């Protein structure tokens, strides 16, 4: 049984444009299905507005989906009561993109990391303090920093604080929503290494949401490409990158700047007429599907 199974997930937003015009429906997530196995690093990639972040938030019910199922260890969390969902979130945590805005600037970072334990009423004060110190060690932050405020830290350190907070409750699944996108490339490499180390040490499973295909190719076992609310291609990373099949995946890959100034460059522009938006995923090869 996969750890997480997303079935036919849909999220529609209704947008009212003017007083007398009909409201329009934005299909942010439009019939998305995928599974993540225990211990996997699953990449969900796409550009702004593709619906990748909304998908991640719907899984945790930070945004309520319009329809579909989210099975965590076989149980549909969309049917949980809000109290039950709160408990379920101990197992499913999220790390956000922007470490500058996702940490409360008025709280000491030790309190920020401790907060999930308090919310779930876990441990005595001393036990919680010990756990915070342990978490600081785990993410490579000096314990001496526990009493400091977020503004005293660099972007990479703040993201470590966000990770420590996400790990406080020993989750099984971590949703990393553009968790390293705002970081400089050298800092990004360090935080990615931390995420991989933690995965091995704590047997974590990741949903890694990103717009950076090269990064995903580098670290994910499988990857799904989203475009306008739909998964247009999904497969084992090596298979998908060796043979990108959907026109959007091809366009996206061809747009990535190449480090070698002499490498052949062939830009593939996306021709929206070259595919049907409602085409279902079909097998291209073993463990590789595309909506063509």
């Amino acid at each position, binding site marked *: 049984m996969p750890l997480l199974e997303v079935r036919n997930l849909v999220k529609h937003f209704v947008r009212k444009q003017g007083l007398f015009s009909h409201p329009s429906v934005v299909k942010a997530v439009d019939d998305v299905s995928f599974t993540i196995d225990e211990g996997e690093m699953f990449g969900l990639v796409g550009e*702004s507005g593709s619906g990748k972040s909304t998908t991640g938030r719907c899984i945790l019910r930070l945004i309520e989906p319009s329809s579909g199922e989210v099975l965590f260890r076989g149980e549909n969390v969309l049917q949980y009561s809000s109290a039950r969902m709160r408990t379920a979130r101990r197992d499913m945590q999220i790390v956000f993109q922007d470490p500058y805005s996702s940490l409360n600037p008025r709280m000491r970072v030790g309190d920020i990391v401790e907060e999930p334990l308090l919310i779930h009423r876990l441990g005595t004060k001393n036990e919680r303090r010990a756990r915070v110190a342990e978490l600081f060690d785990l993410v490579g932050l000096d314990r001496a920093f526990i009493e400091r405020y977020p503004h005293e830290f660099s972007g990479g350190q703040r993201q470590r604080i966000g990770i420590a907070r996400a790990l406080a409750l020993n989750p099984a699944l971590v949703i990393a929503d553009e968790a390293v996108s705002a970081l400089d*490339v*050298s800092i990004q490499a360090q935080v990615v290494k931390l995420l991989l180390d933690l995965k091995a040490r704590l047997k974590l499973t990741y949903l890694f949401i990103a*717009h950076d295909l090269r*990064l995903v190719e*580098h670290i994910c076992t499988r990857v799904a490409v989203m475009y306008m609310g739909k998964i247009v291609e999904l497969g084992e990373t090596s298979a998908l990158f060796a043979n990108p099949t959907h026109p959007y995946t091809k366009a996206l890959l061809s*747009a990535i700047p190449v480090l070698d*100034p002499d490498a052949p460059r062939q*830009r593939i522009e996306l021709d929206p007429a070259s595919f049907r938006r409602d085409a279902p995923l079909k097998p291209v090869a073993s463990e590789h599907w595309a909506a063509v």
Partner: protein
Amino acid sequence: MPAPLLDVQHLAVTFGGPAPAVDDVSFQVGASESGMREVRGAGISLIFQEPMTALNPVMRVGDQIAEALLVHGKATRAEARERAIELLDAVKIPDAGRRVRDYPHQLSGGMRQRVMIAIALACRPPLVIADEPTTALDVTIQAQVLELLRELRARYNLAILLITHDFGVIAEMADRVAVMFKGRIVEEGPVRDILRHPTHDYTRNLLAAVPGAR
């Protein structure tokens, strides 16, 4: 050898902190291939990273382009309006005659960056400083904007000082590159040489940190 278009010598900037933000930086930017152009008016234009904050949200984009011309006394009001449409056309904004009346919020991120570029080009500067011009854009839009900058460079004989953290963008666009670390230029040279044989540790580490780099 003709004088460079831009010659920066021993530049230092401090913001009151212990270490200077820019520390003894010197470099030159030469004119584009066909040699020096006559420098007129402003001479240098800027393109910023985030067009939404760099553009005036309550002013039509055509008026913002026209303003650049009017401020520098380059055109009459009627000429400026005409030029605004030409410039939107030059940066490949479809239906420029109609778009000229749009407000920034009516345009996508990529289109807003094209408007920024049109404003930068309004006074026909020989040098454009582009500060992370595609950093806030999606990769497919980035590719289009970089392509546009390449075309404009050839068409208008532009020299471009491109400021970026992305070595991929450097590899795609630049002839020469200077690598800055802690306020200083630690390495400078032709892009091919620096990418193939980085000599400074910082450059090496930076290149190694690019996902998928060998």
